[in-house]
């Protein structure tokens, strides 16, 4: 019984993709699934930092591929969630250190020991990106409602469709008050432009920065509203039809008499 192997990508660097990967992985693990997070970046590690495991890295994916350690030895188990592990990125800048086939093979092996493999894809559409999608069976595209992010997401969606990967969209860092005042594209605008199926909407939240600084996924704080949102995303991934949170619709009068939140 093989796992679902999902690559999280965006094209544009860091629109919250790594944080999303970490939090989604954490919430899936909380819900009882065995999850392995794979950092597919080359030379710039970040997933480990977001999870707070950066001091516990012993081996990385390149060493696994080169046979210098077993796959299980390289996996770092999260201390807070027993179902969650991470395979750290390579330290080397040498992009040829690992081929697409080798990467896909590692992901396949991981797929035999867990339920979900979440692959955090590096920025851009070059070698790191190609590696990351090599092992995947589906994709989540993360974007913000901002012009250059959407442009890059569109590019990435094109590449994913070329590979025949089913994909869904997460819109991150939404600021509902700016959407209301017409200063930010709405989620409908974004899904319209990208013609992609929506998986989740994550509002901009200042707590995320703090949680990243501490290396504690925000979904582990039970009272955080983002925890509830990620939970909904996880349920949608599992196949449940969960209505999207509405962040307030811009009524005509509300614009003039309503307050910006």
């Amino acid at each position: 019984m093989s796992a679902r192997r999902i690559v999280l990508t965006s094209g544009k660097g860091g629109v919250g993709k790594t944080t999303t990967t970490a939090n989604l992985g954490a919430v899936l693990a909380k819900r009882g699934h065995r999850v392995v997070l794979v950092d597919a970046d080359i030379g710039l590690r970040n997933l480990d930092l977001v999870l707070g495991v950066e001091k516990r890295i012993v081996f990385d994916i390149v060493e696994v591929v080169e046979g210098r350690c077993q796959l299980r030895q390289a996996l770092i188990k999260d201390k807070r969630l027993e179902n969650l592990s991470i395979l750290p990125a390579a330290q080397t800048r040498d992009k040829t250190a690992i081929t697409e086939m080798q990467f896909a093979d590692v992901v396949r092996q991981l797929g035999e020991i867990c339920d979900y493999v979440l692959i955090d894809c590096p920025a851009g559409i070059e070698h790191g990106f190609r590696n990351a999608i090599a092992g995947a069976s589906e994709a989540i595209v993360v974007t913000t409602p901002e012009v250059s992010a959407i442009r890059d997401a569109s590019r990435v969606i094109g590449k994913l469709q070329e590979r025949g990967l089913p994909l869904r969209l997460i819109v991150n860092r939404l600021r509902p008050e700016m959407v209301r005042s017409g200063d930010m594209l709405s989620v409908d605008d974004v899904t319209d432009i990208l013609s992609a199926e929506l998986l989740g909407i994550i509002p901009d939240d200042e707590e995320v920065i703090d949680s990243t600084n501490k290396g504690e996924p925000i979904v582990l704080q039970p009272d955080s509203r983002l925890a509830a949102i990620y939970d909904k995303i996880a349920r949608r991934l599992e196949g449940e039809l969960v209505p999207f949170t509405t962040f307030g619709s811009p009524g005509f009068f509300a614009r003039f008499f309503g307050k910006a939140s």
Partner: protein
Amino acid sequence: MHELMQEAPATSAVPRKRGRAIVVTSGKGEVGNTTTTANTGAALGATGASVVLVDADVGLRNLDIVLGLEARVRHHVLDVLEGHVTLDDALVTDKRVPTMRLLAAAQTREKDDVDTAAFRDLISALRDRFDYVLIDCPAGIEKGFANAIAGADEAIIVCTPEVAAVRDADRVVGLLGDGRSVQLIVNRLRPELVRRGKMLSVEDVNGILRLPLLGVIEDAPDVIVSTNRGEPVALDPASPVGESYRQIAQRITGTLTGVPEIPRARSFFEKLFGGRK
């Protein structure tokens, strides 16, 4: 070519001093690298200096859209490097900033297609024509990064006050080596969060990076609005973020000296009685 000659600044009559080539980089993506390059360039151009902005990303082009010039791009860097068009054909003019030009990135190829030596020669040629060559560096530290820093002897590192960004910036400082002069811009600061201990302060960031501080830019919604419209915030006289960029430009040209002011959270009384800012 004709157009470029007509709009060249008055100093072109005097033997031109070789321009400065500055790469704007960060390592981590989405810290506002491209927005910073665009706005710093626009602010420099607004002082009357001649500036060319070079988008060194290949495959993902964004400098043009941030500047609102996407409809005017006809040719790109690779077209020039491969000799299909002349440099003048490829340089995009901006009606709002007559002394500024844009050289757009290619969309269809990958970074490996750019010969680093050729790119370095291009930057060198641009330095002979412009006072400032600003190179927008793509995210990551692979070939795109190597291309972007080729030919630039100065660098600006853009970093947000977040752990992952600082780590990547630190890595990039290491890769830039000793030969280059490197300065720091801290972007998207939220003084209120710093005050509450929820965000790293500029001092925290620079305690690790230890770079001369070029400027600090507060997180503000008008940046998003400006990219929506394609109107660089540096050209908006009413915008405080624009003012930050204008000061950065003045520090680059040397008309402004001294350490940049770090925005602090306003105290209760300041908010009540409309204090600073």
